[in-house]
């Protein structure tokens, strides 16, 4: 029970962010936002928001390896999840593709385009960004 079949627009409208890491930048206070914010918490009504494509390179701030997941991700276990600080400043949550135990705090990572999940045999396949360690 409870398997929800999601319609495509929910994923389609996030394609710029999920595929290409498009966020925003407030030209008034020079802060970067990912996921994009259209209301800058620093400047609110005085904000000057513009679109910005993040480089996607960043640093692992903290991480875990998940052995027991929700139903949608159960088949992927074990997998690594991390909070990553992008080089421009904002932080996001994402998977790091590496053997368990090899992810470290402070590790540099770069983005890769991957399947994130699929809703059963005939449901939507959704894509997005994962991260891999940068060599050296």
């Amino acid at each position, binding site marked *: 029970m409870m398997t929800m079949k999601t319609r495509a627009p929910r994923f389609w409208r996030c394609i710029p962010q999920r595929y290409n890491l498009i966020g925003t930048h407030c030209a008034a206070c020079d802060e970067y936002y990912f996921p994009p914010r259209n209301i800058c918490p620093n400047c609110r009504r005085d904000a000057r928001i513009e679109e910005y494509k993040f480089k996607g390179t960043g640093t692992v*701030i*903290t*991480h875990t390896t998940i052995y027991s997941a929700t139903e949608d991700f159960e088949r992927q276990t074990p997998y690594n999840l991390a909070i990553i600080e992008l080089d421009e400043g904002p932080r996001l*949550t994402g998977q790091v593709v590496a053997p*368990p135990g090899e992810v470290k705090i402070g590790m540099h990572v770069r983005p890769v385009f991957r399947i*994130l999940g699929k809703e059963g045999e005939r449901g939507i396949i959704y894509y997005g960004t994962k991260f891999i360690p940068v060599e050296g």
Partner: protein
Amino acid sequence: MRPVSIIGIGCTKFGERWDSSLRDLIAETGIMAIEDAGVSGEEIDALYVGNMSAGRFVEQEHIGALIADCAGLSRLHIPSTRVEAACASGGLALRQAMLSVASGYQDIVIAAGVEKMTDVSSGAAADALAAAADREWECFLGATFPALYAMMARLHMRRYGTTQEELAEVAVKNHRHGSMNPLAQYRMEVTVDDVLSSPMVADPLHILDCSPITDGAAAVVLAPAERARRYAEVPIRIIGSAQASDTLALHDRRDLTTLDATVHAARKAYDQAGIAPSEIDLAEVHDCFTIAEILAIEDLGFFEKGAGGSAIEDGLTSLDGPLPINTSGGLKACGHPVGATGIKQAYEIVLQLRGEAGSRQVDDAEIGLAHNVGGSGGTAIVHILSR
């Protein structure tokens, strides 16, 4: 604003209540609280119920009207409101009820909480709970609740030298407390070895670092303090009540090892009560995971940031220590029916302050604190209660 007291309490047995529906649980606890207070149905001005996700857990919404109906109050047409703040829904119900009495608008108000979680598979329950995190930018990428707290734990361990053994000691203590609570889901004790050898859920958190899936309900009855003695031999005064918010997603927080919402709510509640953290005799804190209790006792001002783990290992927060924490067994051992937890915390503090906590009674308890968190810290609610 006028002072408010708790004049009646009720709490069901927590656990896997396969024989009881959400309706049964709410009726059971409602009757207990109303009988304990000795109020009649006609006196009740309003109901507030904390419930996180009956829509996902039992496919039922419109819980406000439902609980009034199940409690046998439908013919009185009493206003009944469901409130939701994920795992802090119960604390929020208590706060809304308190505000309505404090304002002078209503007199006798019931705050209840209920969650019926075991009618769905554990995977479906985990996914319903994950809705308390940021669905689009955490869960969509594979985050689970244990994973978010695991990432806080990892950083706390790195920065402050907190160990897995110290995390495990939280579970050991709360199971010991739970063994003395007849309403607790788990009455068995566990050892540090048991915790560390239990299956890993999200490194470094093992299954015994996590609170369980639980069915349960709890309710308290509030009245203006000046009228409280008419109903209760030992009315318990709410001397502080505060709520604070923070970013929904963990990754957007100022600091990943502090729940700023807890810090802010606690500061406001201490101010209202006119007391310092050191004056608290006992506390129920939100230990959805062992690391969460360590963060809570630091963020509530009981211990310095980074000192929570060693405080627990040194027994400072045990029943026989200077500041007993989670005498009910906490979310860990008493169980965590998410919408009911905040009310159960108030129930435990009232029981202790009345001196009715049996074998787990804290001697000379005068002032207690209840701390309820929604999600990974997007909401925190703190209540301070006094004899």
